[in-house]
């Protein structure tokens, strides 16, 4: 997993509450058997018109927003289906950071596995960040746990384990395989009724 420490980039605000993973990546794109290539389908039903052409009014299609790396959103982001394709699609499009009011538990975990940093900030802070111009950059400092926008700093909280995972870009399975003996010991102590 790619490590994240200090990141500077431009933003895209999508301030609706309860943006679900069906919207982030509709089911017709879940048929692939790879982890890559979902970015072109991100927010598909909002992004494209019925004839398949890009909807110029949707913010992801605005020319001045291309290259943005930080998504600003509402409450309960990523609710609904557990599909990790949602995290893959956000990452594949280019998002490295999400700043929302809250997240669904499963989506949050999926972000921690893919190097997409989910940050929680209160509404007033997000409103300020959402109104900056498309060219303006914000800085996210994970070690120091703050977002800097327009000279203003907003602190955020994050569990120290997930924080270290992002900073080191570690592979979970390798870590857990170090616990193999403990897992075996656990298995030997389990009740069996077969």
């Amino acid at each position, binding site marked *: 997993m790619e490590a994240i420490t200090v990141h500077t980039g431009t933003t895209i605000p999508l301030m609706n509450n309860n943006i679900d993973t069906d919207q982030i990546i509709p089911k017709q794109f879940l048929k692939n058997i790879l982890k890559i290539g979902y970015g072109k389908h991100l927010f598909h039903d909002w992004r494209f018109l019925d004839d398949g052409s890009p909807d110029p009014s949707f913010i992801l299609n605005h020319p001045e927003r291309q290259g943005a790396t930080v998504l600003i959103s509402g409450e309960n982001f990523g609710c609904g289906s557990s599909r990790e394709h949602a995290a893959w699609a956000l990452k594949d499009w280019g998002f490295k950071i999400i700043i929302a009011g809250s997240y669904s538990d499963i989506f949050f975990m999926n972000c921690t*596995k893919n190097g997409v940093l989910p940050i929680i900030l209160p509404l007033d802070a997000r409103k300020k960040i959402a109104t900056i111009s498309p060219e303006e950059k914000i800085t996210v400092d994970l070690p120091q746990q703050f977002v800097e926008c327009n000279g203003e700093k907003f602190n955020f909280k994050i569990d120290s384990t*997930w924080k270290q995972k992002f900073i080191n870009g570690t592979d979970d399975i390798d870590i857990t395989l170090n*616990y193999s003996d*403990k*897992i075996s010991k656990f298995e030997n102590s389990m009740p069996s*009724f*077969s």
Partner: protein
Amino acid sequence: MGKTLFDKLWEKHVIAGKPGEPQLIYIDLHLVHEVTSPQAFEGLRVNHRHVRRPERTFATMDHNVPTKDIFNIKDAISLKQIETLKKNCDEFGIRLAEIGSEEQGIVHVIGPQLGLTQPGQTVVCGDSHTATHGAFGSIAFGIGTSEVEHVLATQAIWQLKPKTMGIHLHGNLQKGVSAKDIIMALIATYGVDFGTGYALEFYGDTVDRLSMENRMSICNMAIEGGAKMGMMKPDQTTFEYVTGRKYAPKKMDEAIEYWQQFYTDDPTDYDKVLDFDVSELAPYVSWGTNPSMSVPVSGSLPDIADMNFQRAYDYMGLKPHMAASAIPIQWIFIGSCTNGRLADLQEAARVMKGHHLAKNVTAWIVPGSRTVKNDAEKLGLDKIFKDAGCEWRDPGCSACLAMNPDKIPAGIHCASTTNRNFEGRQGKDARTHLASPAMVAAAGIHGHFVDIRQKEVI
């Protein structure tokens, strides 16, 4: 200070890690389906890893399978996913209930039906409705594909222990009101994220009286209230349900003795308690684009509270203040992991018997598994549905998420026994209205919702 059901289950499964930090939890049962697993198996292959305990994983095909002409999969990419799962299961030694087999069906229907799901377990699956299995008194939650890979490789998972919320359900349901209405009413009252960060436990005299099928319908939709898991304490009803099933424990008496330790000592042990009296509850129907946008069928649609409501009204083509019973219904769908079990089909058939669908209503009945289908046919339910003008299909997720060709056309209002009414969930621009099996069946007969508590309507 006592312990909750959740605390007791959690403690039994912790392998490593301190409280307050992510802890390594052992996984007893891992269920797998074709959509969220290919990348996980590929990850194992690339890193030369094996499946630690193949006998603890069980796979089936449900999301992508056709429910008509099942061996003729026209979509090349769906076919590829199905073939990939078969290949992966062969290679890694995992049991598979494949398309056409007696055991195949929606993953959350077959787990309990085969006796794989048992009290006292931890259950995961790459699917958010894994919460369903919590009805047996287990910790059951959905995971992403990276976690699927992690569980395959290690039979364990890192999780931060959630807080606990007890939901006290008490009172007798009125005739015509079902378990589905309870969970829809809870979400309508407390919102789509009231459970975020919590493990829910439903308890109380209402729960004690519910059948396993009905308990599963409630836990199934915990995720629609934001909770990764919903659970209920195992009791005599649970033990009787598990007994005699194919993969149930051989030493049943010993197992039951072990399972009986799993209950909450006292309601004060929860971090939070909600109290919910179900005795006055009406049947619920959803009008909008998330499950909290639901109202009693006897009520009317709400004011436009904010931009989210405006957007929902625009999508659904409805207006504030109209009566819920005036929502026109042109399609009905009965099935899914929420309401695709035998008891659900019986409920729907009871309403439909001797009636015919209203003019211009199309109806799809999709049993949750091959066994449900066979059992229903033994009871003659298929005939009741067909006589009413419904299509009787093969098992799968079908129009619950419309990944296969089973899609509701754009603009059509579909009364559906499923769990999600998101934009485009049942097909592009399709308009989903969630309700119970009996309510959906009655809506099909009338061409609009009716309050099935009133005897004269059915």
